[in-house]
């Protein structure tokens, strides 16, 4: 994405390529799938409008104005437009570049900037620091706070955001990263060796889910290696426009995981999977091409991996219940994976899958969006949960920690009966004790 191209009114560093922007031929197909456009009915909040703003900046017809920066952050980066766009335009990615531009043009004020730097550059890169922190304001939530403080000032922002943050975060357990054995042997006939990429949010907030992932992989005949030195995948940094730190983290993970000589690199976090699959592009020119290719060829979401390997069903026990499935953006749009999670669900004896409407629409979490744009986020969540309710299913299944937090919060807020489960949690229930 960074060929020599006229940067126009963009800053040269980390600017979207002109080619990638020109690719939009303005057919408007994407208008039908963009959640922010559905909310506002305002063209500039649509993929086509965002691409047009970027084009105007690149062609020198518009400065990189605060409104352009706002649109870059109001975009959920859900990538629904990428799936819908026959012309291959990736507006979400263009907006990631625009977030970097916004950081460059209007660096955060000092205290907020220091907090942001601390989170993005020190805390997220260092698992130990993050796990040691006692505040319940972790990860994306922190990013959200600093962003909003910078934009709206402490008083206007904090009360509401804090309330949502308190509400959304479950009681934190012990991080799984330190608990999970580094090597778990395969059960039954061994089918291979996989490296488990254990993401920060999974390890910290959903340790029991990732424990199931390791358990399932082992039960299915794979030796599971979980390196403790794993770093944050870099997704939050990309989302917030800090590409430098993202690259640093990516380089470390690249070396670490290629060194493990595993058949596949598997993750149960759709956000991590998406970021890992984009290392090739992020690190282009910063790491050996061949190694990047080899790394990319190994990365799999857990459902993608299992569906591809073929699922051993002999020992599975029935789980008699109906479920509906919410597709995480980072899985369906980011990685194009719609079939595999459903395949996994379909293999569990006794489970009935009831499709909801708009299953591939964003739930409104979208990184720190849920905190920064609470009104908009809530509307998207309510739209989603109305579809869930209409299915009457016993449980709501998804496959990503961000969605999981947001949906679980929404279900509680609205007094709905459905528990929220990660697809591996559901599958785990079918495993022999």
């Amino acid at each position: 994405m960074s060929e020599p191209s006229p940067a126009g009114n963009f800053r040269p560093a980390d600017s979207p390529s002109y080619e990638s922007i020109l690719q939009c031929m303005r057919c408007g197909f994407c208008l039908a799938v963009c959640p922010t456009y559905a909310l506002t009915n305002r063209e500039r909040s649509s993929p086509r409008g965002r691409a047009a703003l970027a084009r105007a900046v690149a062609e020198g017809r518009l400065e990189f104005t605060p409104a352009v920066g706002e649109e870059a952050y109001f975009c959920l980066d859900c990538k629904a437009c990428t799936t819908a766009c026959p012309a291959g335009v990736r507006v979400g990615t263009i907006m990631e570049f625009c977030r970097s531009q916004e950081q460059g043009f209007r660096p955060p004020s000092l205290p907020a900037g220091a907090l942001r730097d601390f989170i993005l550059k020190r805390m997220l890169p260092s698992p130990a620091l993050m796990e040691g922190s006692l505040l319940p304001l972790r990860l994306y939530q922190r990013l959200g706070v600093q962003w909003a403080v910078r934009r709206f000032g402490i008083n206007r922002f904090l009360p509401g955001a804090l309330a949502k943050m308190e509400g959304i975060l479950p009681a934190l357990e012990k991080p799984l990263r330190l608990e999970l054995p580094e090597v778990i042997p395969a059960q039954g006939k061994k089918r291979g060796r996989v490296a488990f990429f254990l993401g920060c949010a999974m390890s910290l907030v959903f340790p029991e889910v990732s424990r199931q992932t390791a358990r399932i992989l082992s039960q299915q005949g794979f030796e599971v290696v979980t390196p403790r030195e794993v770093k944050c995948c870099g997704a939050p940094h990309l989302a917030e426009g800090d590409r430098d730190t993202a690259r640093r983290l990516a380089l470390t993970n690249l070396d670490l995981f290629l060194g493990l000589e595993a058949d596949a690199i598997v993750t149960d976090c759709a956000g991590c999977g998406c970021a890992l699959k984009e290392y090739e592009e992020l690190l282009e020119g910063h790491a050996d091409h061949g190694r990047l290719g080899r790394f990319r060829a190994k990365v799999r979401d857990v459902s993608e991996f299992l569906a591809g390997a073929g699922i051993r069903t002999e020992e599975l026990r029935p789980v008699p219940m109906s479920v509906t499935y919410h597709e995480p953006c980072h899985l369906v749009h980011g990685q194009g994976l719609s079939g595999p999670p459903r395949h996994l669900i379909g293999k569990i004896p006794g489970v009935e899958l009831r499709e909801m409407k708009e299953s591939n629409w964003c739930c409104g979490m979208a990184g720190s969006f849920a905190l920064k744009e609470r009104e908009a986020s809530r509307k998207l969540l309510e739209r989603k949960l109305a579809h869930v309710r209409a299915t009457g299913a016993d449980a709501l299944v998804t496959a990503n920690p961000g969605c999981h937090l947001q949906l679980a919060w929404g279900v509680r807020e609205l007094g709905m009966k459905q528990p929220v489960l990660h697809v591996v949690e559901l599958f785990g229930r079918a495993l022999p004790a």
Partner: protein
Amino acid sequence: MLTKAAIDRLRQKVGTGNVYHEREDLLVYGYDGTPETAGIPDVAVFPQDGEGLKAALAFCRDEGLSLTPRGAGTGISGGSIPVRGGMVLGLTRMNRIIEIDEENLTATVEAGVITVDLFNAVASRGLFYPPDPGSQNVSTLGGNIAENAGGLRGLKYGVTRNYVMALSGLLIDGTEFFTGGKCVKDVAGYSLRDLLVGSEGTLGIITEATVRLITPPQDKRTFLAYFRDIRTAGEAVSRIIAGRIIPATLEIMDKMTINCVEDYAAIGLPRQMEALLLIEVDGHPAVVAEEADGVRRILQEVKADEVRLAANAAEAARLAAARRTALSAVARVSPTTIIEDATVPRSCLAETFAEIERLKEKYKVRVATYGHAGDGNLHPTAATDERNREEIANVHAFFSELYDKVLSLGGTVSGEHGIGTAKKAYLLRQLGAGGVAVMRRIKDAFDPAGCLNPGKIFLDAPAPPSTVHPGGKDV
């Protein structure tokens, strides 16, 4: 320049959130799906009801602004581009389905209703609204009517015009009009309705439409036929029509289109073939069986290289959806796509394909061809780059010569996309000065001051350079 006080006044009348005049908003209400051209309005207004709409019109008169109606902005002849600035009037927030009348088989909708939403709403009552332009998931009924849009089902079911029963709205001077009704027959005076259908937003602003509904076909069957020579595909189309078989859908895609669509949709289209036909026959099961046999026989006679039957409705729907992406999918291979809308009598299809091939050679241009073959309506689409002026000149020369041929065959320069800004010179070529002058008189009768959607259809009013951005081009 509009003053802040004026904008505030407008906001008070139409609602603050329905009036935009920040630069970032204006920039994105100056384009539609047409390449190489865009404008910038002075203000963009999205009334939510008739009162707001009237206030917006009054504002234009007071401030001396021209006005350009806009639906979803999927037009591809430049119809909703505000070439002289002024007001862009968006209709997308007037989007209620007012009534589905199951006794008279009609639906009444506001102009901003999205085509597919109407389709789904009537389908849930067991009824059918056939017009289905490729853009149906986003396009508005108002835009469909203003362009007289066709679609994949045009061959058997006709185009938008065949379904419009009544229209109401406003002339630019504020006069309210109502034309047509729920009566199946109506010859009371001139048919204003028929004048407004296809008027490209230059005669009046449509706020409400009543459309005719029919009952959906009970059965359908969908074929794919592959060809190693595109002229054979053209011949197959002509023979099917001559064989008195009228499929609902009879679409063509050439090799380049097949490959672009396959790159996006990955549904297993044959990349090595020169052309494919997508054919759907529908109706009563007995008729469907008979017509399907007929189609098969003709495909065998012309020696189609392979004929496949879609396994089920889901597969048929996937194929139609893939065909709808053709224009945008061709855009994968280059930054600029210039689409044309050449339409010929159906017996001339093979000859037209041959001419397209010849001209591609002559002008060294990359052109993907697809379209509603059963209607004789082809969309040769050039994959090019607007920064390369030489190539662009070749592309325009290619189309110009192609239209000579099309017109010599008794064809038309636009089957369904309209004239807008993009085809004014071609229109003159087709109709001659006399024909255009008659249209001009009609336009003047509706809009004497020339304030409603100026710069469209007629060559005589070029846009002042200041409102057309540097990439813009006025033929």
